Structures are given as structure tokens and as C-alpha cells.
């Protein structure tokens, strides 16, 4: 199932903004977008989750994979603007300290 994903440049960062639910049917599309964005080895990769209302463990797995790739490429990966339900999922999975999570896109660009 397709998912709307916007990719844009902000200063030295690439911002990937998925829209909708990130579940098993839609996470593969985000994985492809993140891999594509990481191909350019940007200084900073921002995943803007402002329009993601729901995420399950397949979404988490996609972001963990992106984080590992980012570390290999010396790219700084920042997650921003997640809602309380999504934030709770990171806490349940004990991943909230593994990622660099900030509250807004502006904070992420300046991080």
C-alpha cells in the first residue's frame, strides 16, 4: 500500500516526511525512501513524523535500520515532531534513548 512521503532539502539536511500510518503495509515504502535519501550521504537526515498518527514495530524497525545506516555513513539522524502515541511506542520498545528525538522540525534543522 502506498504512502505519501515528501523529501526536501533544508540547508545541509535532507528531510523525509511520511504521511499517514506507518504499519506493516506502509513501512516498506518509507524504508525505500530513507535508503534513497541516505544514498547521498547527507550530513543530517531528518525524519519528520508530524503527519504520522500511528506507528507499529515495523515502523520502528525501519527507523532502527536507518539509524544503523546513518552511523555507518557518519550521517546524523534526527527524528522530530512525533505525537504522544508514537512517542509512547518508542518508550515501550526502550528506543527513546537510542534515537536523537526533538520536538519540532525547526529544532531538528538546528540540531
Amino acid at each position, binding site marked *: 500500500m502506498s504512502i505519501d512521503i515528501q523529501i526536501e532539502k533544508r540547508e545541509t539536511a535532507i528531510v523525509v516526511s511520511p504521511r499517514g500510518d506507518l504499519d506493516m503495509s506502509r513501512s516498506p515504502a518509507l524504508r525505500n525512501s530513507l535508503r534513497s535519501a541516505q544514498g547521498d550521504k547527507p550530513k543530517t537526515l531528518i525524519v519528520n513524523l508530524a503527519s504520522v498518527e500511528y506507528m507499529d514495530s515495523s515502523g520502528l524497525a525501519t527507523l532502527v535500520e536507518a539509524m544503523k545506516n546513518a552511523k555507518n555513513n557518519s550521517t546524523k539522524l534526527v527524528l522530530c515532531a512525533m505525537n504522544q502515541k508514537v512517542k509512547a511506542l518508542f518508550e515501550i*520498545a526502550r528506543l527513546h534513548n537510542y534515537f536523537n528525538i526533538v520536538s519540532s522540525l525547526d529544532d531538528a534543522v538546528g540540531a
Partner: protein
Amino acid sequence: MSDKPHVRLEILSNPLYLCGARELVSAVAKRLSFDEMACCQIALAVDEALCNVIRHGYNRQSDRPIWLSLYPEGPADRPDVLRIVIEDEAKQVEPDVIKSRDLEDVRPGGLGVHIIKEVMDEVRYEKRGEAGMRLTMSKKVVVSSGTDAGAPSASCTGCHHG
């Protein structure tokens, strides 16, 4: 405890239908007075359980059956427990081997069982007769002074289309 489910849904093992299952469970939980976060967590547990059946039980075959049954329990006029049963015809495994993995080992995947056990009060896996597995999980309503349970709400559907 009633033997007859109040709601029973049969879906194919296609990730496309996860959203519908989440919507259904979340809406029922809301009517049973679970707060918004609990509704979302119950929907998350169902989502993770269905994903595990699709991914591990059916090896991603998208045309196999999964049954989702809901049993509100407790006082007849105000049930305060939601029991959820998910059944399949997938390959059987020993229930004891279905465990959470070590979370210190950060890697993609393998979080579903941990998430289910974290958000639900009781979780039990068992073999289902000669074929398939059965997952039974339940959660009790936690009454808080600030709850607006039962009030109409457009949120807490566990599924939003952007």
C-alpha cells in the same frame, strides 16, 4: 465468562487489512470506557499480533485466514475487561518459545511480543487443536478521575489516513 464472542472478524493475512482491525478494536475499547491511550495500546497489541501471524505463521502469504474475537467481561451493565482472541491456521510452535527478545541488542525487528506483553495485562499463547495457534490477551479498564470515557470522540481510532 461468555463462550460466545460479542464481535468476531475473519480477515485475510494481508497487511492491507491491519488498519481495519485496529479501527474495530479501538472503537470497541472506547465504548468499554478505556481511555484514549489504552485504546491505542490495545489496537497496537492487536496489530503486532496480526503482523506476527502474517510474518512468522504464514510466511507472508496474504490469503490465509485469521480470526479476531472480542469478549467484553465483567459486570453485564458495564464490562471492565476486554479479552481478545486471535486464531490462525498457521504452523504450530511451542508456546514457551514465543518470548520477548533482549532489548539491549538494538536491531530491526523482533519487538512484537515485547510490545504485546508490555501493553496488555494478560497474554497467553497456545496451540489450537490440530492446526494453528491461539493468542488470548486481556486488558482491564483503569478508571481515572479525569477520564471522559464514553464521550464521543473522533480520535483513538488507531488508524488515520493521511
